[in-house]
């Protein structure tokens, strides 16, 4: 790792350790606010919103592999602000967009004034239609993660057999949402769009949009997978620590061999996932031939591993882990949601099968 990457990682680790301990995270959740604005400001102050932005746009220009350690920390500390969605995912599409779109949106992404999210991969694109002589942009985006938190949604549009990506400002008239809390302490939303079309929102179009779609969801898989590795590590660390302290029948739980072997298996699964995620991020950064296949594989591996690792963590903690005030169950809930992001885990494997055959 370069010095810059190390610095980034260390600053993230320090900030989150000191300011994002679980109890304060839960206070923020319980407050009912979608976002802790102080955290959000700190994130952009520390430059996290600029991690993957191009250097010519005042970003660090990091690849995904460079920021895997930071993403893992987001999983480990159960960060609920949609920084990765906004800066890495939506930001990545904008960075590949038109000059105008870059100028319009990248500074906001980087300074944190824009909080962008993206919809599920299989969302129905918005449509553009002439209605009563007006060009209207219309449609629904269902189950948008952090849709209740975001200021903008990066939305797909289909028009005349051509695809586009557009940034929809959710505060404008004609954009509405039904927000709801999600099990991972975030705020999702169904977003409904019915507004007068202004092409200023278009980020990119045509074959560029198609390429961006591919890249966006491959990157979404990789980001979610890296976050999952961090969550698994958190679940494992918590289990090791808890079973060390906790005594039963006069012995520490961690001295029971059956639990030792199961914790070893948790470690094995976490490390396997970590290796694959890192390799898949490198492959993506270097545009390797098998980059898309590896992204699918990495996400699928994390889905499977995280289910078992976080379930095992709860089981080995016992009763305490079934309470909302204890951290470890929240890894389980977060991973239960990430499983379906950006698409269904079983569909992911079906696509892996097709790709590695074709």
């Amino acid at each position: 790792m370069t010095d810059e990457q190390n610095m980034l990682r260390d600053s993230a680790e320090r900030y989150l350790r000191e300011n994002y301990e679980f109890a304060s995270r839960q206070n923020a959740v319980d407050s009912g606010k979608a976002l802790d604005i102080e955290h959000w400001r700190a994130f952009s102050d520390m430059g996290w919103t600029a991690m993957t932005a191009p250097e010519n746009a005042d970003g660090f220009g990091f690849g995904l592999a460079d920021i895997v350690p930071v993403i893992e920390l987001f999983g480990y500390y159960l960060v609920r602000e949609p920084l990765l969605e906004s800066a890495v995912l939506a930001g990545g599409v904008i960075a590949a967009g038109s000059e105008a779109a870059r100028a319009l949106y990248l500074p906001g992404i980087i300074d944190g004034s824009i909080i962008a999210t993206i919809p599920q991969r299989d969302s129905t694109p918005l449509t553009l239609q002439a209605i009563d002589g007006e060009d209207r942009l219309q449609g629904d985006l269902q189950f948008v993660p952090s849709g209740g938190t975001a200021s903008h949604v990066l939305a797909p549009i289909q028009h005349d057999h051509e695809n586009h990506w557009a940034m929809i400002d959710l505060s404008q008239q004609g954009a509405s949402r039904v927000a709801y809390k999600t099990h991972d302490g975030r705020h999702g939303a169904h977003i409904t769009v019915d507004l007068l079309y202004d092409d200023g929102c278009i980020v990119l179009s045509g074959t560029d949009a198609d390429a961006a779609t591919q890249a966006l969801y491959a990157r979404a898989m990789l980001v979610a997978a890296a976050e999952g590795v961090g969550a698994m590590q958190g679940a494992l660390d918590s289990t090791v620590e808890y079973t060390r302290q906790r005594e039963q029948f006069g012995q520490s739980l961690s001295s029971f061999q059956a639990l030792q072997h199961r914790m070893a298996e948790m470690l094995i699964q976490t490390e396997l996932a970590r290796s694959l995620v890192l390799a898949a991020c490198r492959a993506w950064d270097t545009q390797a031939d098998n980059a898309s296949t590896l992204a699918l594989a990495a996400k699928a591996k994390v889905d499977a591993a995280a289910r078992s690792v976080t379930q095992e963590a709860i089981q080995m903690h016992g009763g305490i882990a079934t309470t909302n005030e204890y951290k470890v169950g929240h890894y389980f809930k977060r991973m239960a949601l990430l499983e379906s992001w950006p698409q269904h885990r079983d569909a992911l494997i079906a696509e892996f099968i097709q790709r590695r055959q074709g």
Partner: protein
Amino acid sequence: MTDYQIFRKSVKDFLGEALTPELRRAGELTTSVFSEFSAALAWQKKLHAQGWIAPDWPSEFGGPGWDIQQRSIFQEECKLANAPSVVMMGIQMLGPMLMHYGTEEQKQYYLPRMLSGADIWCQGYSEPGAGSDLASLKTTAVRDGDNYVVNGTKIWTSMAHHANQIFCLVRTDKAVKPQAGISFLLIDLESPGITITPIVSLDGQVEQCQVFFDAVKVPCANLVGAENDGWSVAKSLLEFERGGHNFTIDVKKQLRKIHSQAKLTPWGEKTRAADPVFQHRLAEAEIDALALEHTELRIKGAVEAGGNPGALSSLVKVVGTELGQRLNELSIDLVGPAAAPQCLEALDPNHKGDTPVPEHALTAMAEYINNRAATIYGGTAEIQRTIIAKKVLGL
């Protein structure tokens, strides 16, 4: 029609009439062992009026006098009709034990109140730091004239926030070895010195509490069994708890939901019911469900023939709960991203208004989360496997 078919019809008829839409709705929205409390109590009163509230009790104490097959039919029909779950710690756990160990006064006072719902009981066994290891419990009861004075705390007491009574294991002698100095006490939760703190579960709901006892006076008449003999009372109860549940009925209900939901869940150009991968996974679970069902029937047969299920109860507990969790996974596999919203208010049967998410998705995820506890309470899966290793395999 056989007698059992006639019986089943009479149960169905009763349910068809007694289960109001509100009660059914409370059943549909039940995502854990417990239904919303006011619905559960309302349903208890209806069952009590019908004389069916305590299927397992002997007639002399107010049971309906059903045989094991009838009880099973009744349970199954209630479940499939989405009747709410009644809070059963009193009737299912304490009741049979009082019949065996209780004094005449205890029986006469408590048993009828249990049936009518006048008393709602919770169970005070676990303590912080002593989950499955009851011998290490620390709550004390010290004799003071005609009373015990109780100090300490109990945790994981389900429904304590709705209950008015608690049955507890307390330490009455510290000098002897850990299991020997434990006694069994009945305690009125309205006694001075008791504080009840609800515990929010991982799914965001409250079912369990921590109960604190600060110099709580309990009449000595509330001792069940002999002083310092609470361990054997509790053990008999634990066995009852393990053997008492019919997991097949839960599992069948889960399977029925998954099948019907799979048919409604789009998958590519078809539905999930036409996805061979999902169907294979589901079939494997169904086959295990059949194996569980016939194991429960085998045990039931042995019990009817006068045997003791013994460690086979542990087997059923492990398999029943772990299979339940596998089915929870199949359920969320059907739901996908729609499982994300929490929307607690929508799980309240009294809630009016829209929710931004299909109800089956809401309940599937809540159940998936809540049901992690199933392999922990009532003796963890690890404890059960240890029991099997020791008692059946002799290791």
